[in-house]
């Protein structure tokens, strides 16, 4: 089965084709972040080079986040629309897992970290044996310290992702020689891994349709967070003192 893989969640945009999980071809755009312009030409190129057409595809695998919100949406919108017209499944591939999977042969815990701004990273950690992965840290938006403490007992931790630009030195400080950084050209998200995993996910029944396939941002919008915080404050302000005390005591008891 041919699967098209789409990856637009970082500064690189790429498209790849696999046949039964085996990579046939990958095309990468390395330039300014103008994924809307370049994604479709990349898709067109991988298909043409393999003398394939959209109608030959069994499914479309797309990197569903986390990453650049805008980037995620360009890939998702493109994948959903292609799948809608062709009437084939969309496989929403977890971005951080795909990054780790691409390096599954490393004798180490693989720890992708993306710069999530606001002094956080989107991170996760996995250890592979063959094609099976054990999750050491569930994907999430974390302070770097949370990620470091999750992997602090590991012998070797292999880091990748654009989070290394900002946090590389702090990771080295904390883990010393136990931290291995992938070379710069291998650090970023790539469609090859998305397409490969897409096949295995599809086999396991994880294909979705073009409506249900949705991104995973791992973070709500700033406006939503602010609104929730404001509403919480107002609720607390209007709460009678006794109720507030009871609630706080309840919280204490839970600890």
């Amino acid at each position, binding site marked *: 089965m041919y699967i098209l893989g789409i990856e637009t969640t970082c500064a690189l945009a790429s498209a790849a084709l696999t046949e039964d999980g085996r990579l046939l071809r990958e095309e990468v755009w390395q330039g300014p972040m103008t994924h809307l312009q370049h994604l479709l030409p990349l898709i067109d190129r991988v298909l043409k080079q393999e003398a394939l057409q959209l109608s030959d595809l069994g499914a479309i695998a797309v990197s569903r986040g986390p990453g650049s919100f805008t980037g995620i*949406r*360009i890939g998702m919108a493109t*994948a959903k629309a292609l799948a809608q017209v062709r009437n084939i499944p969309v496989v929403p591939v977890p971005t951080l897992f795909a990054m780790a999977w691409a390096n599954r042969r490393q004798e180490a815990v693989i720890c992708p970290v993306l710069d999530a701004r606001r002094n956080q990273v989107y991170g996760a950690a996995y250890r592979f044996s063959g094609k099976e992965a054990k999750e050491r840290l569930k994907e999430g938006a974390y302070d770097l310290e949370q990620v470091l403490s999750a992997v602090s007992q590991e012998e070797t931790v292999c880091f990748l992702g654009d989070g290394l630009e900002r946090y590389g030195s702090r990771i080295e400080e904390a883990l010393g020689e136990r931290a291995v950084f992938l070379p710069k050209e291998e650090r970023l998200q790539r469609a090859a891994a998305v397409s490969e995993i897409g096949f295995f996910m599809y086999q396991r029944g994880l294909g979705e349709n073009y409506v249900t396939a949705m991104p995973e941002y791992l973070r709500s919008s700033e406006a939503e967070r602010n609104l929730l915080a404001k509403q919480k404050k107002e609720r607390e302000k209007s709460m009678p003192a006794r109720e507030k005390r009871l609630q706080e005591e309840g919280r204490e008891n839970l600890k």
Partner: protein
Amino acid sequence: MNQPGEPKNGKGFLCLGIESSCDETAAAVVEGGRRVLSNVISSQIEIHKAYGGVVPEIASRHHLANVNPVIDQALSEAGVSFSDIDLIGVTNGPGLIGALLIGTATAKAMAYALDIPLMGVHHIRGHICANYIAHPSLKPPFVCLIVSGGHTAIALVEDYVHYRILGQTRDDAAGEAYDKVARVLGLGYPGGPLLDRLAKQGDPERIFFKRVYLEPDSYDFSFSGTKTGVLNYINSARQKGESFRQEDVAAGFQAAVVEVLTEKTIRAARAMGQKRVALAGGVAANSCLRASLERACLEKGLELYVPPMELCTDNGAMIACAAYYEYIHHVPPADLTLDAYPVMPLGR
């Protein structure tokens, strides 16, 4: 002779129009440019109300969730399938960039998968084209006043693809000024329609706000002065503890804006030797503006064309219409690299 896929007098030629430039996700199927087979709009107004305005990131997220079902519904209401579509038109600017790119990425992928031409459509050209749908006999040339949340302009529509900008706003769009005044009056979002409703109960002559005409021969607009005048009035009254009727402030502000819009539009039509005047854009739904233009056109012997409310707000049908006319008038279709733009010139 017709090429395969070329319109045969437009009959049977189906265009799918997709629009996602602000807070409505919309899709429509239009036959021959003017016959609307379906026009589906999924509005996010309720979602953004809690924030007092459109939040771009939230809008983008909802567009992505809505766009495919909206297109499905547009096809099924029109009783057609993807294979019947001859052309896709999509708003690729101006607007909120994150919102625009959902429609644009979707339209690009669909046109590619169907192997049919794609036209990138200027959002405001779409609004102007809503008049073709509403008025089957209307043909260019005519003068058009465009008033929306982000735009205020007077254009000479020379033909189906050429637009000459006679004037535009130098600061706030009329819609922006409306929203700001509505917010200060505590009316909520969306401010325009709420302010219009309130103004109906007020006396437009009780409080006078400055009309800004700029140079005598200019068709440009400036609403920031009028807006500031209203805000100052409200603030100083509140500081002094004086009471005022909100209805009168709304009516006075609206009268000042509408008077300038009307005067310049009529003057432009006469100077350009045009007998026809059209109104376009979201604020075209404003009852006071409609009434004022109707009066003025009647007085000067001009014909006024105003789209019905459902075609004034953002919709896919107007985009399909604009795409159709540009396509049949040999504007080159977009290639695979079509991009979306927050700012885009309407014409020369």
